[in-house]
């Protein structure tokens, strides 16, 4: 036994996840993952799948005497435990897991289980479901390093495991890192220089505040939220009709920019329509729930669609706020988490009350709100007023001129009209002027055109104003939002998730294994949303700060940002996660404050250089002994290229735009039914956030982005040749390279090749090039200048690539050479990376 203990200690000393000291197996960290992946399938929470009446997911059941008279787990006595006999047996008929399950235990796993039983077989409740309690900052030896609480947690673990934090990154790299993380675009050289030159204390904090106040902040933060909300500008599926949810997208940007607290951000999006005297904005926010795909395929059963949509809302809410993989419970009790199929449909019941019927593929399926822009709203109000004025003018005319002619509706009784009025006209005139539509007004105009020209003129003016007003209203974007029907729809458990296999009826309720809803909350969407942000909820704050952390470090403290259940990964720094969650909640859910806390930590500011020894020890940087280094999201790579070349048009919001995309991408995917019509001018250079997102064929320029089919809270990050081809050859990137070259040349008239190269390099990477880097680039510039001098047509082709006007230059060969060098700079690993 002693050798086992030693072995186990060695194993645990080598593991990275978990903060607690190595020693006896920790249930959450060491034991549960083994039981979860190798045992629970047949001996877990799912009663239907359970074999031999044995469950190992609860201590009471696992230590009880079985029908056979044996006891699966005898705490403190491995040799008396049936589990140990089974997992160590050589007899295939006895051994667990059984050979046909193909779930063999490794030697190490067997030893962990044995040691755990020997040490008393203690079960913990799953960490993520434990209430959030105040965490003390850990003691550290190196008192000068920490800048805030984050660093205490990080350093404590580093010290425990014999590591040192890295030095701070150079200022050039830091300022670029901060801008890319918070804004998704790099700083201008002037902004960077201002910070680099600011040697006063607090320079970094001042920079952080400036950056957090930029409107680009909301645009950067919105991206990840849109991916989680499965936002797209079309329905998806066959037909893939266009929708106008973009006012909701603009609302998200604005909410981040003005620092809407995360609890309001939550409640408004899930149930803003149900708040007392809900504002337009609060109703608009519920568009979140309606961003799901809509299936317009012929032959689909509307009820099946409708159930799909409600499932999507349920599962998206589960992932985004609770970090739970609810979808497993569509068909059965969760195999691993304490979620039952009943929990799924109880949560489903909250969302099952909308009047959406699932029929057709109309992307404006009610309920909708009209979402005018400010200009449109003003114009609309002006037109309403104008209509009212013109109605009055018509009424006045009818009371005077027409009364004389005897045609007015208010004519004295018994008098014979001087002129015979057709029945149709009489009927129209009998209706109040404000109730007459354009067609009726037109008829009056025609009837009275010659006899009462002035009156007819007033009629025409009214009609035209009404038509303008209605035309404008029709053109307003309509956003699908939430609304509950007055009569509640009954909700049933659906056998294997099939819409037409209803079982037992359920009522709206939150999962039973989580703290219940207080009595004071209504059992509807609003109550659900308020329960999510209530102090008793252990998940919402943890899940939220983890996603925020992920944005800055490339991986969350809990790597499985989408799964905080028992099969998700345990947090690398559990104390830090809880501390941050409490910081967020305790600050009134102030998101900007949390970001500020993260980026002002010493942990964040470390250099991302890595030594072979540290790489060996911690390849994924879970210990945080260095700064994070990871490839930028593809959309940010584009935004960076536009920003550094000066092409970026930094206008906020509005309808989606259609920048460069190779010919035929849409028509290939839709048999020519959808044709991409590229925009011109400024719309080519808006931020990536505004690019039209066709759900069935995402913008071809972006790679490793969420598909926007279902909720995604963790983006993939791969490294393929197709990405290289994109950034080398796509029109956006090549145009940016040649415009960057022009810009630099114009800024430095008469400059040497070296000056030009350094200037271009600094625009992109902020730092100056090293000598060896500079030599390579200057050498290439000179060689290519000779090449293009001999190939003037090639030079001119390069300088006219893209829609931006070709530069006027008397040195086209040099400029083309510089453009090629800029193409290199825009493809450097460092350019594509945030480090």
């Amino acid at each position, binding site marked *: 036994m002693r050798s086992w203990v030693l072995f186990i200690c060695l194993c645990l000393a080598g593991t990275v996840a978990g903060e607690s000291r190595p020693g006896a197996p920790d249930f959450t960290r060491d034991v549960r993952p083994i039981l979860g992946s190798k045992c629970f399938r047949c001996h877990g929470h799912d009663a239907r799948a359970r074999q031999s009446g044995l469950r190992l997911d609860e201590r009471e059941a696992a230590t009880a005497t079985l029908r056979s008279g044996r006891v699966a787990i005898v705490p403190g006595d491995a040799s008396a435990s049936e589990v140990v006999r089974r997992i160590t047996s050589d007899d295939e008929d006895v051994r667990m897991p059984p050979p046909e399950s*193909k779930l063999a235990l490794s030697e190490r796993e067997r030893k962990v289980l044995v040691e755990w039983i020997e040490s008393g077989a203690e079960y913990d409740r799953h960490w993520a479901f434990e209430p959030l309690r105040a965490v003390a900052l850990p003691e550290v030896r190196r008192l000068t390093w920490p800048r805030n609480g984050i660093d205490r947690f990080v350093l404590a673990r580093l010290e425990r495991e014999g590591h040192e934090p890295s030095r701070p990154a150079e200022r050039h790299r830091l300022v670029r890192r901060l801008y890319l993380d918070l804004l998704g675009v790099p700083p201008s050289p002037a902004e960077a220089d201002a910070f680099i030159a600011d040697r006063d204390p607090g320079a970094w904090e001042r920079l952080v505040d400036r950056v957090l106040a930029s409107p680009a902040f909301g645009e950067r933060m919105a991206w990840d939220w849109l991916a989680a909300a499965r936002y797209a500008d079309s329905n998806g599926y*066959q037909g*893939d009709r266009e929708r106008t949810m973009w006012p909701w997208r603009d609302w998200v940007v604005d909410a981040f920019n003005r620092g809407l607290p995360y609890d309001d951000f939550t409640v408004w999006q899930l149930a803003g329509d149900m708040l007392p005297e809900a504002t337009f904005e609060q109703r608009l926010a519920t568009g979140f729930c309606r961003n799901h795909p809509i*299936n317009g*395929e012929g*032959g*689909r059963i509307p009820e099946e669609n409708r159930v799909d949509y409600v499932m999507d809302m349920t599962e998206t809410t589960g992932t985004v706020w609770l970090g739970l*993989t609810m979808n497993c419970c569509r068909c059965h009790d969760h*195999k691993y988490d304490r979620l039952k199929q009943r929990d799924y449909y109880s949560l489903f019941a909250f969302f099952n009350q909308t009047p959406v019927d699932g029929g057709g593929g109309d992307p404006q399926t009610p309920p909708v709100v009209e979402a005018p822009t400010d200009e449109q709203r003003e114009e609309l109000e002006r037109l309403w007023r104008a209509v009212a004025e013109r109605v009055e003018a018509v009424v006045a005319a009818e009371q005077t001129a027409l009364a004389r002619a005897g045609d007015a509706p208010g004519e004295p009784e018994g008098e014979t009209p001087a002129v015979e009025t057709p029945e149709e006209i009489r009927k129209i005139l009998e209706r109040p002027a404000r109730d007459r539509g354009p067609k009726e007004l037109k008829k009056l105009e025609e009837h009275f055109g010659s006899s009462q020209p002035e009156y007819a003129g007033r009629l025409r003016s009214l009609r035209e104003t009404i038509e303008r007003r209605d035309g404008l209203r029709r053109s307003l974007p309509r956003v699908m939002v939430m609304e509950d029907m007055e009569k509640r729809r009954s909700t049933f458990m659906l056998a294997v998730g099939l819409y037409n296999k209803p079982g037992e009826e359920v009522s709206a309720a939150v999962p039973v294994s989580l703290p219940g809803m207080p009595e004071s909350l209504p059992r509807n969407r609003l109550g659900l949303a308020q329960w999510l942000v209530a102090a008793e909820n252990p998940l919402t704050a943890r899940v939220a700060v983890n996603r925020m952390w992920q944005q800055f470090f490339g991986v969350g403290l809990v790597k*499985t940002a*989408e799964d905080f259940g*028992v099969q*998700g990964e345990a947090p690398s720094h559990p104390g830090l996660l809880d501390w941050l969650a409490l910081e967020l909640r305790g600050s009134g859910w102030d998101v900007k404050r949390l970001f500020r806390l993260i980026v002002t930590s010493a942990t964040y500011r470390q250099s991302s*250089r*890595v*030594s*072979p020894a540290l*790489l*060996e020890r911690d390849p*994924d940087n879970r210990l945080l002994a260095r700064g994070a280094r990871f490839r930028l999201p593809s959309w940010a790579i584009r935004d960076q290229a536009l920003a550094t070349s000066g092409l970026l048009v930094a206008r906020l919001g509005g309808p989606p735009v259609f920048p460069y995309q*190779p*010919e*035929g*991408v849409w028509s*290939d*995917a839709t*048999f020519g039914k959808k044709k991409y019509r590229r925009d011109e001018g400024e719309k080519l250079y808006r931020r990536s956030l505004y690019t039209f997102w066709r759900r*069935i064929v*995402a913008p071809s320029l972006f*790679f*490793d982005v969420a*598909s926007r089919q*279902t909720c995604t809270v963790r983006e*993939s990050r*791969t*490294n*393929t*040749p*197709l990405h*290289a*081809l994109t950034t*080398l050859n796509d029109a956006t990137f*090549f145009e940016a390279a040649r415009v960057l070259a022009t810009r630099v040349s114009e800024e430095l008239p008469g400059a040497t090749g070296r000056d030009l190269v350094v200037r271009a390099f600094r625009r992109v990477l902020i730092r100056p090039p*090293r000598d060896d*880097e500079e030599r*390579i680039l200057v050498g*290439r510039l000179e060689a*290519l200048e000779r090449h293009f001098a001999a190939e003037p*047509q*090639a030079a*001119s*082709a*390069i300088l006219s690539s893209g829609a931006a006007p070709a530069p006027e230059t008397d040195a086209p060969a040099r400029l083309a050479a510089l453009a090629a*060098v800029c193409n*290199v700079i825009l*493809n*450097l*690993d*460092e350019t*594509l990376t945030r480090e």
Partner: protein
Amino acid sequence: MKRPHPLPDPIIDAARHVTRREFFGRSATGIGTAALATLLARDGLAAPSSTRSNATSSRVGGLEGLPHFAPRAKRVIYLFQNGAPTHVDLFDYKPRLRELHGKEVPEDYVAGKRFSTMTGSPKGKLLLQNVEPFHRRGQSGAWVSDFLPHTASIADELCFIKSMHTEAVNHAPAISFLLSGGELPGRPTMGAWLSYGLGSETDSLPSFVVMTSVTRNTTCGQIFYDFYWGSGFLPSRFQGVKFRGSGSPVLYLEDPTGVSRPVRRQLLDDVARLNEIKLRDFGDPEIATRIAQYEMAFRMQSSVPELTDLSSESASTLEMYGPDVRQPGTFAYNCLMARRLVERGVRFVQLMHAGWDQHNSLTTELYSQCRDTDQPSAALVRDLKARGLLDDTLVIWGGEFGRTPFLQGNMNDRKRWGRDHHPYAFSLWAAGGGLERGLSYGESDDLGMNVARDPVHVHDFQATLLHLLGIDHERLTYRFQGRDFRLTDVHGKVVEGILA
């Protein structure tokens, strides 16, 4: 293309021309095996495999321990027929349908079954006989209708499965189910699983290539969703790369105008040299991967145009594939391209041909549908066989479900005869690597309505496909959201009866 600046640094040399796996395998960076294992596990790459299929190809990537056993096939060409070909008109001959033509569907054949809303209740629907006559073909005597004379001529090479059945009744969920094992988008498709598990046999082309086509003038509105070749929760490098039907087959393959190949090479040399400096400075192995991927990008810029250059194909070969073969975007062109792709080491080629949705066009569009696909499909099998590739290449032909043995439409309006979606029995054929030749496996009932003998569920079919590639379908898994996922979900049984 010779590189002008051989730096004497072993790290750099390694990084420049080899894959990341080989690069790490040399341990020249000082990155030890533990770090290596973690990094590779993260990307789904594993330690070097010693598998070498022959002198000219070596495996790039793939999981250690795969294949689980000796494979019968090394690569797959899936000729996916979107829209669902009508089994009772093409492969599944039912004389009884002729006898009962125009009669109502007997209720016990359809009781409790769900059909699309176009059919609604099957009650009172009229049975419809096959449109064209069937004949027994070749020595094996397999039934193939006159709709498909070319397929009929290679019947002895084929293995017909006539007892397929599936679960979904609408196209997108059913196609997703067949290709990924799940009805909703989000799971990896077969090609992604194979790229992940078995890696690639080429470093200058993607391991999973998709090409699409549609019959001209079809009224069918099917769309190819990219989740049909998605990698789901697997890293996105495993997703299918869709070659386009017009213009350059790979997006962004062409250098910008004015940038010649030698200039591109020089610029990439600079990118590599600067990235090498960065690698030495920062030590992040991702930089080495990036260097390798930029090099593969450069190779693809040559290998893809070479792939689509048909000048080396003989006139007789081209003729065999039929008159459309020179027309990019047609099924015939794609079939020829499929052969060229597998010759060059591509693991999984997925051709998708849409238009098989004969709700009201059995006597009209079905003819052009068959004309466009029959000859090229047969030519591909012949061509592979002639080159010795059929032995270890698996070719599959089929759609996402079958079509109702009863009529959709009006019996008196023959021009508008159609059949609706039918998941309860359908047929497909497969040929090559490890399959019995000239076999007809399984049976539907006398009306072609339900499976009567040797049912093959979609998950069974998937398990069998993996088996032929040397993979135990229960052991090729990927952990996501706390669960080990696999292509066959928690089902699937290898269909022993079709193995050679």
